[in-house]
């Protein structure tokens, strides 16, 4: 049973991350491989604050979300004014820089050996210290994130983003500020990813740089691509399927040294196959 909660907690956290990536990549249309960097930023901020007793969970989560918002806006801002391909370089650069920072700022992050001993989340007198309680916390957060996403997409904001995706120039021709809309979307994506990071830190109680590297960003993209872009359902199906994959792989006899590579290779293969044969993913819209 504990195993099931473990899987579902991760699914819930990755639903939030998936929504964030979906917003940035699926809806605004920015190619981002730096989502894991933002995820990691959130995780390290919350982890640091809790381990060093700087502040309690909820304020730390707020700080993490704010920092992630700012970083995401800073990353996307210059590239939104110049051609799309420049952002590919920026995104890769941010991701690689983040991994370097997580690995080398040993004083703050614990370096390559990671940050152990992150205490469980505590607020309103409750302590989320069991598998079930963490699942509950993550599930509530995922529900809030999903409702938020749905609300935004039904609002004029969502319609504006869709119109921008279809024809940016026409939208500008009707007096709307395209840049602001994209930046706002990036800000929201940042908040979600950072918050997911904070939840991850208290759930696992140990974080290290390898969780937030380029491979993780590829996994997030794969979730959006497989589940389907631009829909809430896609952001739920993606994590459900892809987080079950490692379990399915244990039925095949793969040596542990290559297990990670096999998983990553499968993600790459899924990206290719879906782009060629089913760009709308399982339950989404065409990317």
């Amino acid at each position, binding site marked *: 049973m504990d195993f099931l909660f473990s899987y579902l907690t991760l699914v819930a956290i990755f639903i939030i991350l998936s929504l964030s990536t979906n917003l940035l990549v699926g809806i605004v249309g920015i190619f981002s491989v730096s989502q894991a960097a933002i995820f990691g930023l959130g995780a390290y901020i919350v982890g640091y604050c809790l381990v060093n007793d700087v502040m309690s969970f909820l304020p730390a989560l707020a700080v993490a979300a704010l920092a992630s918002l700012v970083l995401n806006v800073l990353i996307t801002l210059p590239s939104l004014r110049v051609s799309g391909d420049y952002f590919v370089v920026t995104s890769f650069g941010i991701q690689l820089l983040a991994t370097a920072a997580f690995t080398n700022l040993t004083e703050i992050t614990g370096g390559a050996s990671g940050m152990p001993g992150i205490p469980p989340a505590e607020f309103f007198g409750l302590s989320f210290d069991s598998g079930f309680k963490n699942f509950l916390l993550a599930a509530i957060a995922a529900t809030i994130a999903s409702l*938020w996403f749905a*609300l*935004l997409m039904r*609002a*004029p*904001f*969502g*319609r*504006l983003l*869709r*119109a921008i995706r*279809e*024809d940016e*120039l*026409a*939208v*500008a*021709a*009707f*007096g*709307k*500020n*395209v840049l*602001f*809309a994209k930046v*706002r*979307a990036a*800000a*929201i994506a940042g908040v979600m990813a950072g918050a997911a990071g904070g939840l991850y830190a208290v759930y696992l109680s140990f974080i290290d740089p390898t969780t937030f590297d380029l491979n993780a960003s590829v996994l997030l993209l794969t979730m959006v691509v497989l589940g389907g872009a631009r829909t809430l359902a896609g952001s739920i199906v993606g994590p459900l399927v892809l987080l079950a994959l490692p379990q399915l792989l244990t039925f095949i006899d793969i040596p542990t040294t290559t297990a990670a590579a096999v998983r990553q290779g499968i993600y790459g293969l899924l990206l290719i196959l879906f782009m060629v044969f089913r760009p709308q993913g399982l339950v989404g819209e065409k990317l």
Partner: protein
Amino acid sequence: MSATTYLTISGVNKRFGGLQALRDCSFSIGPGKIICLVGPNGAGKTTVFNAITGFLKADSGEVSFKEHRLTGKRPQAIVRLGVARTFQNLRLFTDLTALDNVVSALPDQFGEEPIGATFRPFRTSRAQKALRDRAAAILSDVELSARSDDFVRNLSYGEQKLLSIGRVLATGAELLLLDEPTSGLSGDALESVMALLRRLREQGRSQLVVEHNTRVVQQIADEVLFLHQGHVMAQGHPQTIIADPALAEIYFGGAL
């Protein structure tokens, strides 16, 4: 302030590589009229629109509308100052219904930014209801009420052209730049568009219209601007311009 400072373009130049698209282009128009911009293909008519509305940065020259300087401003700012344009290839939002296309162009919508949309969902949906009513009124102005819930792909070409005018009306702009609003139309559809443009003029909307159809020009224009090789060669009453043999030579290579 004289009527001719309504929309003024002076000395605008634009070069694309080896092609001088606009060459010392200058003209002024007054308010409350329909002015047709005519000229042979490649004269630079759409380029003029792009330069006025900020889609292109001119190499030199000034554009002003009433007391505002438009030169160097971005399209969204220019729309807010009261000048909006349609596109030759329409560029309607194909995933949306006719009504939603008009709604999407209405300015200052509550809920178009995420904070309002998140924290005040009820005010957002009330505002949306009001906006949809306004859009419905605009659709009825362009006589598309019957098609308001149809998707763009299900509209006829003539209806799509009317919708694109409806959309630019939604921006609330005072001066409309219409890029070939009647091209590809004939018969009833053509008459509908012409009637619409006349109605808009009665309501006080000024229009600068790129037009190839001389019959349309004769029927709706208060004034004509003749553009050739990026330069305004003549400005005047439609009859005068159309009757001018030199201009006809340029336009057709022969008499009208």
